[in-house]
């Protein structure tokens, strides 16, 4: 039938933009598989082996507890770092004195080696829940503070002047002018902070907690099982991508509803 043919043609045409991506992805998988043939599966697993290991992981209920523990640590560290970073960044942007005082401190913290914090926190807090959270906070909050600080500097002075002309109080200016102006910076901070937090959390766990995904990684590392390490790593990456998509993208979409969208 001609109607059905045009429909099918339209469907095929709509797939066309995805073609290059699909091709490179397919080619990558083929190359990966070919290389893996030269090695033992535990040392360099091919895509098929990796998928199999991941399915095994998902079948084991205790693994969800492991992921849950790690997620909770990330959440705590991330939240504390976001809070400290946002408040400090705001204060630095608004108060000259605070800016001068913290400026060099932030720069120093940003340059301090992350791995040092991981080791130091183990020495200071021992094998405990505090160690990885402490590490996350110390590494992440300077990033957030610097980002929000830059955002505060970029707030349109004209809008602040408008608010002052109409006698808007500090709180009203903060709620309706400053924070909405900062929201692009807040969102970029949120996402950077989250991706940093989870990477650091795994390192922290590997060194000094004895539980969580990081612990799994170090165990499999000691057994020389690359396939299991990759299975854990990729699975965890998928969890974080889903959180990013579900929480931040949708939230961002709602917050920026005022931006005109071009009709498609």
């Amino acid at each position, binding site marked *: 039938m001609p109607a059905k043919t045009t429909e099918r043609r339209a469907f095929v045409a709509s797939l066309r933009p995805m073609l290059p991506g699909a091709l490179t992805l397919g080619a990558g998988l083929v190359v990966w598989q070919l290389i893996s043939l030269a090695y033992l599966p535990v040392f360099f697993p091919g895509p098929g082996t990796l998928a199999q290991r991941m399915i095994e992981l998902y079948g084991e209920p205790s693994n969800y507890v492991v992921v849950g523990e790690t997620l909770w640590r990330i959440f705590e560290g991330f939240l504390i770092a976001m809070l400290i970073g946002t408040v400090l960044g705001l204060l630095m942007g608004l108060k000259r004195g605070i800016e001068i005082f913290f400026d060099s401190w932030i720069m120093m913290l940003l340059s301090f080696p992350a791995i040092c914090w991981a080791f130091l926190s183990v020495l200071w807090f021992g094998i405990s829940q505090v160690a990885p959270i402490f590490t996350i906070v110390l590494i992440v909050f300077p990033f957030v503070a610097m980002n929000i600080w830059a955002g505060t500097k970029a707030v349109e002075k*004209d*809008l602040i*002047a*408008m*608010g*002052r*002309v*109409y*006698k*808007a*109080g500090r709180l*009203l200016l903060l709620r*309706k*002018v400053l924070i*909405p102006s900062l*929201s692009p910076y807040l969102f970029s901070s949120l996402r950077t902070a989250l991706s940093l937090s989870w990477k650091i959390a795994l390192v922290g766990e590997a060194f000094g907690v004895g539980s969580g995904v990081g612990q799994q990684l170090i165990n499999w590392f000691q057994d020389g099982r690359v396939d299991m390490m990759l299975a854990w790593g990729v699975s965890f990456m998928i969890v974080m991508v889903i959180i990013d998509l579900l929480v931040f993208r949708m939230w961002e979409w709602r917050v920026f*509803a*005022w*931006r*005109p969208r071009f009709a498609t």
Partner: protein
Amino acid sequence: MWGCKGRVAAPSALPPAELQRAKGQSAPSQQSTEPEATVPAITIDKVTKRFLAPGGQTRFIVLDDISLIVGDGEFVSIVGPSGCGKSTLLNIIAGIESYDTGTVTIHPRVAAANAQPRIGYVFQSPRLLNWLTVEKNIHFVLEAQNVPRSKWPDLVAKNLAMVGLAGQERNYPLNLSGGMQQRVAIARALAIEPDILLMDEPFSHLDAITARKLRFDLMDILQRAKPTILFVTHDLSEAVFLSNKIHMMSTRPARIFKRVMIDIPRPRQPEDARVVELEKNLLREFFSVVEA
């Protein structure tokens, strides 16, 4: 708190002699030398402001001994070349810029015990909060001015209708054209029921056709709401079309060199012979001073 010394300036602040006739005018009735017996809304008495030149010790004078009175319900324009300090003067009146000597007094229409005068301000660009709907942009200033919430819906509806934007309450500013955004800014300024309305070249960023339309609409609003307006512009024809009084400013020195009263009845037409004639005469005089 914002530069008001809280005293009513003596009538001598504005010597009647300064209210000159425009030279070479054809119809004397269009202008009068008699100061009107209106209640003052803004009194600016011998205000001087200096800026320290960046890096150097030299101070240059932004405003040099400026005195003027805006009567209640009047439309007064300040016309001058860019950089003559017109906007600075508005900011001083609005209380967001300091000055060195002189007094600025704003007289609230309703003489309540501790009434702060309400100041509406329309800027060159709309300065809307793009993340808030049109309605919430107006709520912002109402909240800032502590207007009771129960009055908000009426004030929003009335003033949006006044600027021809009824029905746009829930729209976001970036979905509106530049002219419509500026209308929202005007509605926002009117919504607080201002004692005085300051306008800083509000139409200069718009295309000629939109600007012309907005001038007509402003004229229409004047007939209905009778706000007191101090209007700053570099466009003399705009000033002649809209104003009751024009103060012409020069750059160096930053002074008012001529004051004109315009009696042409409203509503006016920009092509009206009296408007055109007056404009021509004032332009000649304006450039003879400014270009000197």
